[in-house]
């Protein structure tokens, strides 16, 4: 996505108060407590280990670091990661 269209889309979503993750095609990351991370709108798994999971998203690579990480479920749009999560970042 080039920078110009991205800008237009962002202003549009701001003006119309539409959810950004749909308009901009970026991931929505929800964290429930310290042992559930739900990543919506992902683009596949890049790395899966017990202590680190890297997920490709529209706005970069999401890295989940922790221990005993499991993928509770994986679908086209959504990944649910469980385990003891230390940090979530890009």
């Amino acid at each position, binding site marked *: 996505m080039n920078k110009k269209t991205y800008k237009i889309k962002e202003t549009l979503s701001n003006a119309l108060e539409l959810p950004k993750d749909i308009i901009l095609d970026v991931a929505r990351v929800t964290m429930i407590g310290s042992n559930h991370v739900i990543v919506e709108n992902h683009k596949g798994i890049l*790395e899966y280990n017990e202590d680190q999971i890297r997920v490709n998203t529209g706005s970069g690579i999401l890295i989940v670091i922790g221990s005993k990480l499991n993928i509770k479920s994986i679908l086209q749009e959504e990944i649910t990661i469980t385990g003891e999560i230390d940090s979530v970042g890009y």
Partner: protein
Amino acid sequence: MIIIRLWNFLRGYAIIIVEGLKIERFINMAISNGIYIWDIKKLSYTSISAKIGLENFGKMREIVRKTDSTIVIKEKRGFPFILKDLKRHKLFAATVMILLIMIYVMCSYVWMIEVVGTKTIDPKVVMDIVNQEGLKEGVRKAKLDRHSLENKILIKLPQLSWVGIQVRGTKAVVEVVEKREEPELISKTDACDIVAAKSGVIHKILVLNGDGIVKDGVTVKKGQVLVTGTILRENSEPRLVHSLAQVTGRTWYEDAEQMDLQQIEFKDTGRKTTQYMLKLLDKEVGFKKTIPYSEYNEVREEKNIISFGNYVFPIKLISIRYNELVIVPKTLTVEQAKKRCEERLNERLKLHLSENAVVLDKKINYVEEKKSVMAKISVEILEEIGVKKRIQAK
């Protein structure tokens, strides 16, 4: 989540172990092919375990080939596999089915009858009539006509004022309410006499209405008229009134008690044996034990083994406990015998005395014989002896 799990269970799923260097690629390809996998766990650097739906299993082959990995089924779970197992164990499946049908059939019968609410009537009497009218153990619930049954019981037992039958589970509860017996009330407008309830000597008579016939100090017999409600005067017709009077009289009460000096007492030795039997419907099954004691008493208990709340099934465990007893002969002294006699006489006297009675004098005479003691009690009581009696219209 439980709904999703249940759904997965019903569809059937397999736990697979995937081994290969391109694990992430395997997962991504699976989802892009529309295969739902869940509960992914890393086992080692090159292997994972995951759960996969039964219907997607065929689609995996291509992905496995493309990612150079191997796939092993560790376990198959879910309803389709249970069904498959059952098909193999036909006898077991049939037994389970028969058992379920039997439980269902058993639930549609009455296996226990309870009578609730009796006060003066023996519950057994009610139970007999209930049985006679067709509510027995082992009757089908659907065949019970509760309304007509209730009416029939009410007709047969006029002492009852209400009968209700409730079927809860396999239990039928017969609830009864007894009629309260009303004392015969004589209203103030009805004419009545006052008669003696007991024989005795009139202590004091206070006539409020009617004509007094007896005076203080007169000896009266039971049933004798004390105050008449029929008033006869010269120059006028006989008139009937409702008599009112307070009549106190001295009455006598006598009683006797004999007590042997040689007494036999049974003492529990503490030794006991218990016999168990099963009761199916009306048949008792079990070994009869021979009881090794010459003197014993028995305690019988019946217990329903299978019961779920109100669902009771007709299998009972009967335990009969035999307690060994030993005869201990005991000789009472004359004094002890006298004391026992006195206690018993006083107990009986208490039952005899009415509410407002006053004991004026009490004498106990003892007659000592060779082997026993005889006690005689004579009591003088001051009590109300007047009772109203309706005058029958001629």
